[in-house]
């Protein structure tokens, strides 16, 4: 199986280690990974702010870059949703591009979804050394859950990961308050939502909080640092990487 | 009519049509797509089904009614029913009980049963304007209202009351306590059968002016999301199930 990694602009610029983990995890599962260097951003920030004409060239660029890939894997529920769900809406009055978007959407996956649904893997290879024990709690990204309908896959992989113990979080599916432009436009409302999320993370007593989106984790990690919490924030790709490494 | 024509025209403009939808085909999702000619058959099937499952439905009704806040009493005879109503009336220290003219209540001798313990029972029926005014006053001051029911719904724990010649809307509304007597034969499985029957009534030309589906006591949670019963309607409700 071949997969082109769309690493997302946030991972590229802020969390390159998440991309590295994604590459290692996929390779260990037997996937041939490539990285199209022409990629930049899926255009979501512009689309979500209402600037559709600014989002379009980026979406076109994405479609051109990945049109001939066998499958496209994205370590972000939100960016995967942009490609899979919103490109069609963006190009609703340009039938050719809409068709191209549908075609690309059909082979685009969020990382855990790709592993479980496309590769059919729910059992992970044992790590070489003794597994590192971690208690982890999982935050469910909004677009991952509600635009892509991915709910069981990340949990299944975390449960299968050697050494990882899942601690359930109350209101795990409630938004962390990030929402891209929302957090910039309404930092205090976003901060209020974040405070609730942090309370629920703290209640679990977990060592780490994880998610499939680096943007949620950016928000949660930033809040935890501000409020003096020492819980780690790690992307699911990193946890899987650690567990298999 | 001018208001209506202009209004409809503006709706059509918004919908991008200039004529009324030539022949509107209701989709299968709405019951409007089901032929009213089959209503009778469906209603009968529903009623048969209900009578075959009546034990099960009575049990289900008793459970759902209790969880909706009714005090449920299961009685096997009319005398028992009258006895239950009498003691409920005594519990609320009733001086006056108003009741509907449901035949069932006549046949259980409710008036006499109440009179025996010194409680006045008033039957609210149609009369002239001044009679109605007086009845309102009576109902307003009565401590309890007693009615039969036209249907009961096992799914939701409800009784449905139709307004008609013998049945005032106010008996089950104005007094602070209400007792509804439910016979086995009127228990329906769910809301769906109720509305099938009502739709049938419409095509038979006797829908009437009013139906009230009552599910438990009057309640509100408007103050700090705290549940309070007995706001404008009865705070205490009894369902007497007649086996």
């Amino acid at each position, binding site marked *: 199986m071949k997969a082109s990694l769309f690493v997302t602009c946030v991972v590229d610029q802020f969390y390159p280690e998440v991309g590295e983990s994604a590459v290692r995890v996929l390779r260990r599962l037997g996937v041939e990974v490539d990285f199209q260097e022409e990629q930049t951003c899926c255009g979501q920030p512009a689309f979500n702010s*209402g600037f559709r004409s600014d989002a379009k060239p*980026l979406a076109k660029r994405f479609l051109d870059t990945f049109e001939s890939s066998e499958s496209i894997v994205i370590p972000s529920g939100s960016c995967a949703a942009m490609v899979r769900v919103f490109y069609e809406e963006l190009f609703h009055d340009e039938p050719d591009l809409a068709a191209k978007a549908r075609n690309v959407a059909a082979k685009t996956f969020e990382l855990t979804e790709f592993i479980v649904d496309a590769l059919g893997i729910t059992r992970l290879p044992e790590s070489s050394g003794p597994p590192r024990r971690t208690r982890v709690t999982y935050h469910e990204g909004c677009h991952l859950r509600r635009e892509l309908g991915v709910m069981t896959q990340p949990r299944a992989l975390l449960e299968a990961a050697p050494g990882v113990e899942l601690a359930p979080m109350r209101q795990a599916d409630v*938004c962390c308050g990030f929402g891209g432009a929302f957090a910039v436009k309404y930092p205090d409302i976003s901060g209020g939502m974040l405070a609730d999320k942090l309370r629920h993370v703290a209640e679990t007593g977990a060592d780490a909080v994880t998610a499939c989106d680096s943007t949620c984790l950016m928000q949660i990690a930033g809040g935890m640092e501000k409020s003096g919490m020492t819980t780690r924030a790690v992307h699911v790709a990193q946890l899987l990487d650690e567990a298999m490494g | 009519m001018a208001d209506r024509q202009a209004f409809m025209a503006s709706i059509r403009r918004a919908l991008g049509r200039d004529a009324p939808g030539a022949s509107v085909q209701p989709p299968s999702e709405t*019951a409007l797509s089901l032929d009213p000619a089959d209503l009778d058959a469906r209603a009968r099937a529903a009623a048969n089904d209900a009578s075959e499952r009546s034990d099960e439905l009575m049990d289900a009704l008793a459970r759902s009614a209790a969880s909706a806040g009714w005090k449920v009493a299961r009685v096997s005879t009319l005398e028992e029913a009258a006895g239950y109503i009498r003691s409920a009336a005594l519990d609320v220290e009733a001086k006056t009980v108003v009741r509907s003219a449901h035949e069932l209540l006549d046949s259980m001798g409710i008036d006499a049963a109440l009179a025996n313990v010194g409680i006045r029972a008033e039957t609210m029926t149609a009369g002239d304007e001044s009679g109605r005014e007086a009845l309102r006053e009576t109902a307003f001051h009565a401590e309890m209202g007693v009615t039969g029911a036209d249907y009961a719904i096992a799914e939701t724990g409800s009784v449905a009351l139709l307004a008609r010649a013998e049945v005032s809307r*106010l008996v089950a509304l104005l007094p602070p306590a209400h007792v509804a007597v439910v016979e086995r034969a009127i228990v329906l499985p769910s809301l769906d059968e109720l509305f099938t029957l009502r739709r049938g009534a419409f095509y038979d030309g006797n829908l009437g002016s*009013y139906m009230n*589906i009552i599910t438990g006591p009057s309640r509100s949670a408007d103050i700090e999301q705290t549940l309070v019963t007995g706001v404008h309607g009865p705070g205490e409700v009894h369902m007497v199930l007649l086996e």
Partner: protein
Amino acid sequence: MKPKTGDFNRAAASALADADVQRNMRGLYDGFHMARERAAEATPNWEDLRDRARAVKAHTIEYLDHYLGMAAENVERAGGKVFFAKDADEASRYILDLAAARGVKTVIKSKSMLSEEMGLNARLEEAGVEPVETDLGEYLIQLRGETPYHIVAPALHLSKEQVADLLQEEIGGPRYERAEDLTAAAREQLRGKFFEADMGITGANFLVAETGTLVLVTNEGNGRMCTSMPKVHVAIMGMEKVVPSMEDMGMFLRLLIRSATGQRLSSYVTLVNGVRRDDDVDGPEEFHLVVVDNGRSKMLADPALREALYCLRCGACLNACPVYRKVGGHSYGWVYSGPIGAVVSPMLTSLPDAKDLPYASSLCGACREVCPVRIDIPRMLLHMRSDLAEGGPHSGSPRASLAERLTMKAWRLAVARPWMLRLANRLARLAQRPLVKDGRLRKLPPPLSAWTRHRTFPAVASRPFRDRWRSELRKSRRDG
């Protein structure tokens, strides 16, 4: 009701700072929201019901003229009168004329969002008619001169203490403390009004086209009072409330009520067919149905917003919304609040004035997840955002600020090509240098300082992923 939709930011800030509001709002999740969750789970075929109801609403709205016409004929056949009002003013005037003609002095009212939208109470008062709200929550906010805080629970924001003060001032007598006693006091106060009133005004939860039946859902019993006691009953209804068949009511009632409060059925579901019949014991002698557009056809005309008219006003999207639970109902500045309010309020008033509302969402989609008719609110918000940012039909011209537009252009430039991204990375690293400590930015200068009030920010990576790919990952192939 003069909209204050432009005040979102200030109102939200004050709600965030109000500990009472925050505590009350937190209760919504464990209360209404979880009650809905349990009720949905306990209802067989819940997801099918939602699909079916959505399909029925879609069809009805597509042929709205047809179904309204059918409904009106049937209401008239049952002895009612029907008036179609293009706006709030026409609807109010019809009611005022009727009140004047019948010499009405007191009107008892059952909760209606449309009445709030029309500002009907103020109009009645001006005409010397006393309007009395009889739903407890609605009565309380009428006394305070406020709009509803929540579609289903209008007085959600008030504490017991506030209610106690309010009622003591209005009624006199002792100051009660407990919810039971406060409710009893309000009940006593309102009882007399039910007898005095010459007109009852209700809203409408549904109107069944096939039979001309008005369906009202209440818990307190005031709806029954308003439809049984006065000689004249007036029902006001947004034009989207019509449904095709009596036999659809099982489905709609289950969805509406279980989504709203989680009850299997509300205490009272009242079905009204015109006026009292000759041999009825009681009931009104006149029944008037006022069907109101008041801007709804703007949503009807825009295929992207049409589904807002499927709304059953159950309030589930408010309870599910993490933004609503922070900012509360009044921040939205008009009658409707929460996710559906962020769509409906701008459309019924003015989108440019209410331009903050479509942005007051993290687009998390919790609203759509609970909506009984699966209204895609996030998509409608996105549609309105693009209308605002780029000057669509509802906004006329672009409404984004210069700063927003410049930020967008700068960002677009940065991500336009890989080499530009590399350049942007280098510039960002230069700019952040004085602010970074241990790889984090803890205090940003304005306008980003608000961000760092609640969270720190990661520094831009010195070696972005694309560089690491080139130098190591590409070659290493399989290392597992």
